[in-house]
């Protein structure tokens, strides 16, 4: 019989770790170096007490141990009361299950199987002409002025419009979704702005709920259609569960890609020689540069888990019910896997970063994110090649506890000529393309690329 080690023995490596403070953002590299050197798995008493995994090997082994980890968020208290992927979990009144990212198999697997045919590389590549048109129109709106805010005028809009198109929601509604999708991430719970954000989130929720009912009555292709007709472990999922899934798809589809794009453009502005090189050598460099920006900036810096059975992983003993923070961002800076980890190398090799997570919960929208990012960045390189971001007007998220994002990134560039119609007119044209060509159908039904008439 083995003896259960005392808590003091198991929790020998203790740190004070609070990723929700501005200090963590400012001292991210120092904190990461310290944790890597001293305790790649550590216990912290913050936020109710939880483990923090920062080492690459440790994060890898933990994330892949699905049999000992749970993502479950048991909002109704009918299973083991686990708290999902957010540490700390929100107050009871605001607890909502975060879609299949807060579920375990088999339900989680059934959801992914339902949505994969809309999100695979083959499915996403059909949208490229659509994405290019939205990007073109966004840049056209600003090209004659020589000034743009890369967040407000580009990186917020394109992921939002594409996500809605894939869901089967009218494109013109992107403004209903845009503000709450970002503001709910960067607004602290005690902010005086929170009531306004909560009201916008409520309106977004209503719009989603209406879309669910409408599409259930009258099918139209897209992710929502797949969800309302899905067979999840032998059942049709209830609306409250589906609302959580839609919130996950919107949360995952909007703010993360915006964050990646803004940080990459800011870095390229600060490193103009590298920007010119990326533009010149994009055929060979764009893929590796995209992965390197993903590694270095890690827009979604980590995920919480609950230990679902006593176990020992990566040399650490865990007990059932304990909470664990898997830091993708810190694992991405481990020098044992990434030489010179705190610098961006656009041609980095062997870049096995964990920015989309690891294991069965790998970001289901990773192919969308990469495609949208690449189309936005290359269009900027083509049409605004001398852009200079304005550090005075740049606003980063105050903390990187949830998303390492940016609120504003103003830039100036040599003005150019418009190439086509306005954004509003473009969205009308693209809406017709969605409706007439059934663009949002799964790749199993429709293989042709979008025809945008341009």
């Amino acid at each position: 019989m083995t003896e259960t080690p005392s808590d003091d023995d198991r929790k020998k490596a203790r740190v004070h770790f609070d990723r929700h403070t501005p200090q963590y953002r400012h001292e991210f590299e120092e904190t990461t170096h310290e944790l890597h050197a001293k305790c790649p798995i550590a216990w912290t008493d913050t936020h109710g007490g939880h483990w923090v995994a920062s080492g690459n090997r440790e994060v890898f082994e933990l994330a892949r141990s699905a049999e000992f980890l749970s993502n479950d968020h048991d909002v109704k208290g009918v299973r083991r009361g686990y708290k999902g992927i957010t540490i700390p979990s929100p107050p009871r009144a605001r607890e909502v299950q975060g879609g299949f990212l807060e579920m375990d198999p088999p339900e989680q697997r059934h959801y992914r199987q339902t949505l994969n045919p809309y999100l695979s590389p083959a499915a996403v590549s059909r949208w490229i002409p659509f994405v290019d048109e939205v990007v073109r129109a966004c840049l056209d709106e600003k090209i004659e002025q020589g000034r743009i805010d890369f967040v407000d005028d580009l990186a917020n809009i394109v992921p939002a419009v594409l996500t809605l198109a894939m869901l089967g929601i009218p494109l013109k509604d992107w403004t209903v979704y845009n503000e709450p999708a970002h503001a709910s991430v960067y607004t602290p719970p005690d902010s005086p702005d929170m009531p306004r954000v909560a009201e916008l989130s409520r309106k977004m929720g209503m719009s989603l709920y209406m879309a669910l009912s409408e599409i259930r009555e009258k099918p139209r292709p897209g992710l929502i259609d797949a969800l309302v007709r899905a067979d999840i472990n032998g059942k049709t999922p209830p609306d409250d569960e589906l609302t959580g899934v839609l919130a996950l798809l919107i949360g995952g589809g909007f703010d993360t890609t915006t964050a990646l794009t803004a940080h990459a453009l800011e870095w390229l502005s600060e490193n103009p020689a590298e920007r010119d090189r990326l533009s010149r050598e994009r055929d060979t460099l764009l893929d590796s540069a995209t992965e390197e920006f993903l590694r270095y900036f890690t827009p979604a810096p980590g995920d919480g888990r609950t230990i679902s059975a006593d176990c020992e992983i990566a040399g650490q003993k865990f007990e059932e019910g304990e909470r664990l923070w898997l830091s993708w961002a810190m694992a991405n800076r481990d020098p044992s896997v990434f030489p010179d980890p705190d610098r961006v190398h656009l041609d980095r090799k062997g870049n096995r970063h964990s920015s989309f997570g690891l294991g069965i919960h790998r970001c289901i929208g990773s192919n969308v994110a990469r495609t949208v990012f690449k189309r936005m960045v290359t269009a900027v390189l083509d049409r605004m090649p001398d852009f200079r971001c304005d550090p005075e007007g740049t606003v980063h998220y105050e903390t990187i506890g949830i998303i390492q994002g940016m609120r504003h990134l103003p830039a100036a560039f040599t003005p150019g000529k418009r190439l086509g119609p306005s954004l509003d007119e473009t969205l009308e044209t693209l809406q017709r393309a969605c409706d007439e060509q059934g663009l949002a159908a799964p790749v199993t039904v429709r293989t042709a690329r979008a025809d945008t008439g341009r």
Partner: protein
Amino acid sequence: MKVRVDPELCQGHTLCWMTAPKSFQLDEVDGHSSAVSEDVPADQEEDVREAAHSCPERAIQIF
């Protein structure tokens, strides 16, 4: 040189396909990877090694 993608480990990150597009193919429906052929042509060996090294899930076996 031979290569195999473990279907139990692959999660569809697609890095292998970006690194060695001649040697890996992605499933149309879920984007998971498989080797185009178990035998790696001599001119592809370097790319396949790099792809194996890049796999976030360590799902690619070279033997």
